């Protein structure tokens, strides 16, 4: 790990924070506005089931440390989730205040308030010992992203020995390398990694299957948790996609977060309509692109990105083009064909069909494809007995257990690419399932 490989923190003018933090008075007033619902719907709506009214009332009572641990007990990545969670469709979306024609409680910002206070104290560093003492079982977590971190922390709390294997220079997965800078800074992700480490989790930089063999892991560990994410972006599969002005969205985001020198075109074309496409489009604007054009083969209505992400991108000056599918990357241009929407496909969305003779070229000097992440499970093909379905690892949903009883899995490689909080929930569920399986066996 060298200094050069550390993620870069951009200047605040280029990537200011999307939402400013709450100050003490504002946090107190907002915390007091919470009704303290019983069996609250916000808690049910959170994939990790953070006891939201409890942590909010602890802010109101002046017990900030207790508030932070209420969050962390349910979600070890409470800091990053407070910044990146799509709260509109989760906790805040289910707030009863909606039924009362009132603004929902700002749960995300209150959580961030408690978390930032916690990490101010944590800077000094302390270690967290398992309450029930150490156990002899050893667990390997493959991949260093949110799912593995959550699984590892939960297992450590129960006294299991845990090692996280990750092939990147720094752990944290997409939290460190893949989330847009204006939402989450790499330093925040690394503080969470440090907290997981403070629980006694060991981190090893090694690519499983290359520098450490799966056979060895299988032999050395009682259980293995697979949280490898989705790997690289899916290829476009069109002529010209190997041109040097083409860079896939995840690579582009990882690149600008880790390098001071980022080349961005004057006119940038982004291909795709998901949240990652919009993250890349916004970043391109902020890095200096004069024009950023998002092309999507369906319409605004079918676009999978969250509505607030779409609204934000428009504010950033990103321009949108609907019903256009790329057919070839040319020299300083992309050739598209117009589409029209046909019958609904398996996903329930209307399938785009090319309109013959409608080809057109769009001049640009940079192309960022973000058309979905490939579900590369090369590693898992090597692990015998694990069933893969549609490119994803098949698991028993409540436990995260794969078809091999010693292997568990969670995060994007299981759910196909959702939010950080979903990965944390997967990792935590798997850890608790492992703990329960051992308790059932040994008591």
């Amino acid at each position, binding site marked *: 790990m060298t200094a050069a490989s550390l993620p870069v923190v951009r200047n605040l003018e280029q990537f200011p924070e999307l939402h400013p933090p709450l100050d003490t008075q504002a946090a107190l007033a907002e915390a007091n506005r919470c009704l303290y619902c019983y069996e609250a*719907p916000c808690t049910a709506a959170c994939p990790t089931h953070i006891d939201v009214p409890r942590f909010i009332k602890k802010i109101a009572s002046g017990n900030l440390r207790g508030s932070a641990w209420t969050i962390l007990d349910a979600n070890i990545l409470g800091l990053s989730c407070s910044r990146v969670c799509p709260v509109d469709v*989760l906790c805040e979306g289910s707030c009863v205040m909606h*039924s009362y024609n009132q603004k929902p409680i700002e749960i995300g910002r209150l959580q961030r308030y408690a978390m930032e206070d916690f990490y101010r104290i944590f800077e000094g560093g302390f270690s967290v010992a398992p309450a029930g003492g150490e156990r002899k079982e050893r667990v390997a977590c493959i991949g260093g992203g949110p799912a593995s971190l959550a699984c590892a922390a939960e297992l450590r709390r129960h006294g299991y020995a845990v090692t996280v294997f990750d092939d990147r220079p720094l752990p944290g997965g997409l939290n460190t390398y893949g989330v847009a800078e204006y939402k989450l800074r790499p330093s925040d992700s690394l503080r969470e990694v440090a907290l997981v480490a403070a629980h006694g989790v060991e981190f090893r930089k090694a690519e499983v299957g290359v520098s450490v063999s799966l056979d060895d892991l299988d032999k050395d560990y009682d259980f293995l948790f697979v949280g490898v994410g989705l790997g690289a972006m899916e290829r476009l599969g069109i002529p010209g996609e190997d041109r040097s002005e083409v860079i896939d969205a995840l690579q582009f985001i990882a690149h600008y977060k880790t390098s001071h020198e980022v080349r961005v075109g004057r006119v940038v074309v982004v291909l795709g309509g998901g949240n990652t496409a919009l993250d890349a489009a916004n970043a391109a604007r902020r890095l200096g692109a004069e024009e950023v054009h998002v092309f999507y083969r369906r319409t605004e209505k079918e676009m999978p990105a969250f509505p607030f992400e779409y609204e934000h991108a428009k504010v950033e000056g990103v321009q949108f083009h609907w019903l256009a599918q790329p057919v070839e990357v040319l020299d300083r241009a992309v050739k598209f064909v117009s589409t029209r929407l046909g019958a609904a496909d398996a996903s329930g969305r209307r399938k785009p069909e090319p309109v013959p003779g409608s080809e057109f070229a769009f001049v640009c000097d940079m192309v960022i494809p973000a058309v979905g992440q490939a579900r590369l499970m090369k590693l898992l093909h090597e692990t015998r007995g694990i069933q893969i379905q549609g490119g994803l690892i098949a698991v028993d949903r409540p436990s995260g257990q794969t078809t091999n009883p010693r292997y568990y899995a969670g995060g994007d490689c299981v759910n196909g690419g959702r939010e950080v909080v979903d990965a944390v929930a997967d990792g935590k569920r798997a850890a608790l399932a492992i703990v329960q399986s051992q308790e059932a066996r040994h008591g």
Partner: protein
Amino acid sequence: MADLTTVFAGGIRCPNPFWLASGPPTNCGEQVMRAFDAGWGGAVWKTIGEPIVNVSSRYSSVDWNGQRMMGLNNIELITDRPIETNLREIAEVKKRYPKHAVIASLMVESKRETWHEIVKRSEDAGADGLELNFGCPHGMSERGMGSAVGQVPEYSCMITEWVKEVARTPVLIKLTPNVTDIRSIARAAQRGGADGLSAINTINSITGIDLDTFTPRPNVGGLSSHGGYCGPAVKPIALHLVQQIAEAGLPVSGIGGISGWRDAAEFMLLGCTSVQVCTAAMHYGYRIVEDMIDGLSTWMDEKGFATIEDFRGRALPKITDWKNLDLNYKIVARIDTGKCIGCELCYIACWDGAHQCIHVDGVDGNQITVTPIAKLDSVQNSNGHTPPERIPRVDEAACVGCNLCWLVCPVEGCITMERVDSGKPSESWAQRTGANA
């Protein structure tokens, strides 16, 4: 338009019943004149007596749920300015504001001649009335004044008599709530010849303790002392004590947590002729009187009351002993499912704090939740409608009609307490047991 003109105890005339209570807002003539300009009908001057020395750090408060100063506590003593300065300023105020009421609050050592002298001097300065401070609970009481007088019926009666020997203007006795039975002091004042009562003075209090220094607030160089509690928090106590002293039949000036016209109307419904305000004016300034006048006038117009006398004391007959309440009057809680927001506060309140008659059929807490992707997942957007499984239901047969669910419900008009026919004739405990027979 309602007429708010007030005549208290036959001699204190003012354009409206809103007086500033004796305290920091009535410390000097310049303040009182500004208060009159803002609309106050009268002012009870900051208690006059031999000047004292105050400490630095004098107030502390209780905040509640993010709101400041639900209750205020003070350890300030009476005026720290010479008697002649206060009296000169009273004369100046009365010269400039002849239609407004200036009442001199007085506290001197318990000597007949001393009381005679301060009464004469105050009236000579132009005071429209006198309020004898038998209530101040801190500091002065350690020197045999204030509540040290007001806690002993004989002393209260005796000093009232001394004052009445020479007074030409109405004499009000300001009562302390820091007694077992306030009626005994009210009766003593009546025996002494008082023309009216002011109630209540502040309540003995320690508002809080600093968890780092272990020193109660307010902190005076590492030590504190009990103070007098006032502000919105004390209003229910004040209302009760005002009701208690109504039996004396003397005009009452109501004091205690009054910060708006609604509070004032409530004190008047319990018999008060005027009301006094201090904490709210300390919090927001004299300007608050504008809405007190406006709000009370509008309410009186709506109710068809031309003067305060038209409704004064109307709530008194509606307060009785518990034994006279109807045991067969039955109400039950009803929840408007269209208004319910599903917070389930009524459910947990009834279950833990009342009679276990509200039920929630509930949801499975173990379900796996994932972030919905709006256009990929079939998201059931509730569109602001409460899921039916979160709406509690009341077992009316088991409901005792305690009101708790209605009190905790955050939504106006969602829970109502509705009368149901108990099928039995009205019967009180007194009737049932023959207690009144």
